[in-house]
């Protein structure tokens, strides 16, 4: 699965260019994180991945096929999108029905739906809550319910818009395990997040956006080593990384263990 953006420009009808020429290729199964301050164009960019927004100019290609050739509903089989606010998505009277809604829309066989239901419910921690009304769930559970509803449709690419927003440690762990499980199944995860600790813990590739442009794109270590450029986008590396950089360590580290290791190494020299 490959998503390719070619000189993508986008302006909202009310005026103002939000995306100013984005060139990007995202492929394989390696999870990708998109970071940047509010208004950088992250959500606007990913909304092009399943055709919710259509480019003002430039091209979006999914596996080489132009996004304009199909409707969003048709793309939803291939590209799943979990919205930021679960209340925009949930409307049925039980979690189970929410899970079954998407697959039925894309005409997935009932047998398959049943089979997936078990796996997805377990993965997002909803097995015990399948018969609850989504409005009775906690905000964090609602989020997992929407994630489950999109996973049910078995898309090849999954887009998570701020899944860490409002999550506690447990929620973050569950998210990480979901992303890992999806990678194992050969799915591509693209995640927008403001939580740098979360980002560095499971994303090898990081894309930094600022003012409607991609200013950095690369492996986590490379991206967080560019302190000057990062400052421009108001992205702060995780605390331990900042400490390491402040201490003058050459290696970019994300965990305490890595920090200690790097420190030992430099002492030896």
């Amino acid at each position, binding site marked *: 699965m490959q998503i390719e953006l070619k000189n993508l420009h986008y302006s*909202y*009808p*009310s005026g103002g260019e939000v995306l100013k020429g984005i060139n990007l290729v995202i492929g394989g199964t390696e999870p990708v994180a998109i970071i940047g301050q509010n208004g950088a164009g992250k959500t606007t960019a990913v*909304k092009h991945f*399943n055709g*919710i927004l259509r480019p003002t100019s430039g091209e979006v290609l999914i596996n080489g096929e132009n996004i304009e050739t199909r*409707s*969003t*509903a048709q793309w*939803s*089989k291939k590209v*799943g*999108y979990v*919205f930021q*606010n679960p*209340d*925009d*998505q*949930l*409307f*049925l009277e039980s979690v189970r029905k929410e899970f079954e*809604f*998407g697959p039925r*829309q*894309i005409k997935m066989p009932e047998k398959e739906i049943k089979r997936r239901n078990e796996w997805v419910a377990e993965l997002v921690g909803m097995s015990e809550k399948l018969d609850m009304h989504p*409005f009775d769930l906690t905000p964090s559970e609602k989020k997992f319910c929407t994630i489950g*509803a*999109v996973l049910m*449709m078995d898309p090849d690419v999954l887009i998570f818009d701020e899944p860490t927003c409002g999550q506690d440690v447990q929620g973050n762990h569950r998210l990480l395990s979901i992303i890992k499980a999806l990678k194992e199944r050969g799915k591509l995860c693209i995640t927008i997040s403001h939580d740098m600790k979360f980002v560095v813990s499971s994303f090898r590739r990081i894309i930094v956006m600022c003012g409607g442009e991609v200013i950095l794109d690369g492996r986590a270590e490379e991206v967080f080593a560019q302190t000057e450029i990062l400052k421009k986008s108001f992205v702060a590396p995780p605390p331990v990384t900042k400490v390491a950089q402040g201490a003058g360590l050459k290696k970019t580290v994300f965990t305490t263990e890595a920090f200690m290791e790097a420190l030992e190494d430099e002492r030896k020299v």
Partner: protein
Amino acid sequence: MATISNTFIPKNTVIERLNPMTKIFAIFSLGLGTLISPGPRLGLAVIAGLFGAAWLAGILKDFAKIMFGFGIPVTAMLLFIQGCYHPGNVTFIADLGFAKVGLEGVRYALKIISTLLVFLGTFYIMNKTTYPGKLVAALTESGMPPKAGYLVLASLNVVPQMQRRMSVIREAQEARGVETGGGITARIKAYIPLLGPVIMSSLTDAQERGMTLETRGFGIAGVKPTAYVEVCKTRTDRAVNIFLTAFFIAVVSAAVLTKLDFI
């Protein structure tokens, strides 16, 4: 994100600078004046005047769209029904074959239409050129209880708010495989998943807003609330008010005089 917060777009025109109360007074003075006046002529003149006002306010295109969009179908319908079947029809001006068109009915239809259009037009201009906050400040200043003022503000905001939510929710449902385009049945089917979240979220929104207002002491009795938005009356306001009052008195007296003549 879309930046349109309500139907009001600041343009800083003469009409926009008027005191909101003046504009509300205009709705009633012009609207009731047209209603009271015996024939449709006055209403048509007022409508012509409203087009001028819309031009001054810089919203002529939208205004014309609304007036013709509503006016033409309603005129066609009322002219047909009243023209052919008005009980007071005695003078017939045309013969359609299956029914005769009466002058009285046509006059009656034109009068109803002109009154409707005057109310619609004045309200539209008021709504399009008045910042809702300013309107509510003006209303509370002239004696409306703040709670009622809030109700006005909330109801003015609710439609654009719902529209915005609706578009977000539509996107979310499209991403779940719901086709929102296509034929009429597909569209109706597609709207069912949208309605639930829209209604539920507006209810929770309303509840949250209520709680926020409470925590800010909105319900405290016995204090004099002040408004952040300043509303002032200018010389233009006074002139327009005098004109509107004179207009209304003139119409009423003319109506009374014509009635008396008949007796």
